[in-house]
């Protein structure tokens, strides 16, 4: 068990200190990525300094709805998570795996990957730290580690941010994945903002974090500041928009593949695959093979894929999962149940993205609750009726 956050090395950075942090990361050769306002949403992209952050903005989220709003203050991290996750950098949506050349001696294969950029992520939320840890298990701990992911992951510098506001679709607390960033970061920030101050309590999570912090203009954190930071996270935890009862959930789903709710949700689900694209843990991919017209070279490109497509389960003669019912069941049962068999952890961190970005507002917490609520009563027990 890691040391409790409050016993970690802490310091206070003001806005200039945070600016210096971004500059120090850039000076060390990192490509610094953070939240930016773009296309009516908060996305993750390259940032040069504080001016690129969405100061004074927040997001309002609901099933099938996402809207940006002005805040009353100039908070830099006063929003929840947007449609993108850090997955798009560690596990890119499109990647060339290799190239093949038809030569005199036959085929020659060579890896297409150049050296990966060294990423610094600024603003990684607790649920996202957990999502990264889950993808680490998927990509690095099986019999065949994914070399590209492993390299990008090893080189990444992570600056977490504790959430000061829970979204209406958030349920990280139910999944034990937040809102406090506990592990898996180099530095973690808590934004302290009110009429009298705008500063960041920074906690050290690794030797690299310690080393970086040492070079920054900072001051020691007072006990009152640590307490204020803890209060921010505690308030967020009490504001969770949703909850998911995980007790016995794995068995509940795996034992009920024929539950009528699967057909009911399938009538609403469009099989659009949005939920899988926005999910920070969904890892499925497909490949595309391309050859040039002359027939002398070819390449294999890997792309994000989704279990909501018919092709996903295609076998000669037809897809295994023909119905939307079977595809939704596969997705949700994988997330909340079989993921545990496969990787020893749930595949859901409670970030709420799949709820917000579902065009028809299907809510994974509501679907799980519905299956639980309408379960046929266990036989052999006396319920006093009939």
């Amino acid at each position: 068990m890691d040391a409790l956050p409050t016993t970690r090395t802490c310091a206070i950075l003001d806005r200039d200190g945070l600016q210096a942090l971004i500059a120090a990361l850039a000076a060390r050769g990192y490509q610094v990525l953070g939240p930016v306002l773009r296309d009516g949403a908060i996305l993750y992209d390259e940032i040069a300094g504080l001016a690129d952050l969405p100061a004074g903005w927040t997001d309002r989220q609901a099933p099938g709805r996402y809207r940006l709003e002005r805040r009353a203050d100039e908070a830099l991290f006063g929003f929840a998570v947007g449609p993108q996750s850090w997955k798009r950098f560690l596990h890119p949506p499109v990647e060339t795996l290799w190239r093949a050349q038809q030569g005199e001696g036959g085929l020659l294969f060579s890896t297409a990957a150049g050296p990966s950029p060294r990423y610094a992520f600024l603003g990684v939320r607790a649920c996202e730290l957990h999502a990264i840890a889950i993808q680490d298990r998927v990509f690095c701990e099986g019999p065949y580690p994914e070399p590209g992911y492993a390299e990008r992951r090893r080189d990444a510098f992570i600056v977490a941010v504790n959430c000061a506001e829970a979204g209406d679709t958030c349920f990280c607390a139910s999944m034990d994945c937040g809102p406090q960033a506990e592990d898996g970061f180099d530095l973690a920030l808590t934004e302290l903002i009110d009429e009298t101050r705008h500063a960041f309590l920074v906690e050290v999570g690794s030797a690299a974090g310690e080393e970086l912090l040492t070079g920054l203009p900072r001051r020691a954190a007072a006990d009152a500041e640590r307490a204020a930071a803890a209060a921010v996270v505690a308030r967020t935890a009490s504001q969770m928009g949703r909850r998911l009862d995980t007790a016995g959930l794995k068995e509940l789903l795996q034992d009920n593949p024929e539950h009528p709710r699967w057909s009911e949700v399938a009538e609403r689900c469009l099989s659009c695959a949005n939920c899988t694209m926005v999910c920070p843990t969904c890892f499925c991919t497909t490949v595309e093979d391309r050859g040039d017209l002359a027939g002398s070279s070819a390449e294999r490109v890997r792309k994000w894929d989704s279990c909501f497509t018919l092709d996903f389960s295609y076998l000669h003669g037809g897809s295994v999962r023909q119905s939307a019912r079977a595809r939704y069941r596969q997705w949700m049962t994988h997330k909340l149940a079989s993921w545990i068999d496969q990787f020893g952890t749930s595949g859901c961190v409670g970030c709420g993205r799949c709820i917000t970005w579902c065009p028809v507002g299907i809510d994974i917490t509501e679907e799980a609750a519905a299956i639980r609520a309408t379960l046929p009563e266990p036989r052999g027990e006396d319920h006093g009726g009939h």
Partner: protein
Amino acid sequence: MPVALADPFLPQPYRVERRRRELAGTVTLELAPLAGACPAFAPGQFNMLYAFGVGEAAISLSGDPASRATFVHTVRHVGAVSGALAGLEPGATVGVRGPFGRGWPLAAAEGADVLVVAGGLGLAPLRPAIYAILARRERYGRVVILVGSRSPAEILYRRELERWRQRSDLEVRVTVDHADAGWRGHVGVVPALIPRADFDPQDTLALVCGPEVMMRFAANALLAAGIKAGRIHLSLERNMKCAIGLCGHCQFGPSFVCKDGPVMSLERIAEILAVPEI
């Protein structure tokens, strides 16, 4: 730039040494690495074969596991990739990744009777198991091979089956769905042969591969014959893009067919196998 980690996505070039036509649309290829020897494989494992510019397909190893000079694969043309592979001529190069997956648990068969149940092309991944058993025939009890085929013209490895049938230490039975004028053998589905075969249900390992419906019926017939689910092993097929547990396509309930299978015990998969569209 030298590749530090072995890249599991990168195929190795192999040359087609021989090509034999087995049936209409089905050929057997022998592939030799451009450099070095073939890696060892276990009966029941498969390779990912890449046809230049077209794509990759999971194809079972169907040759003798004792031979390290070549990989033997039997390919049936059903679509773009399998068609390109089946059309390859000697001298052509293909990409090979593998071998992958868990094969038949032959060690668990030692001292016991072995019942091999194959439908159609399902005999391909079982053939290496038969070779391995024959190479150490004394280690096993009765060995029964039951083969089903749509028609006499579609019996895979027919000459080899005839040879095996001559042996006194093998029981080989072949059935067809649709007989022709010359057919003297059994007509019907392969699970119907199970009650006729001679084995001790208390001490038999059953190895089954064929179309999924056929495997469901065969599994039920084997259970009915008294073989325990833990001693019945099936080789499954699911869409595969990576073969190494990373693309998610081959999921079968909690299992990844590519790394937890393709061979899995009925005990492990019976519940999932019974759910349509899982």
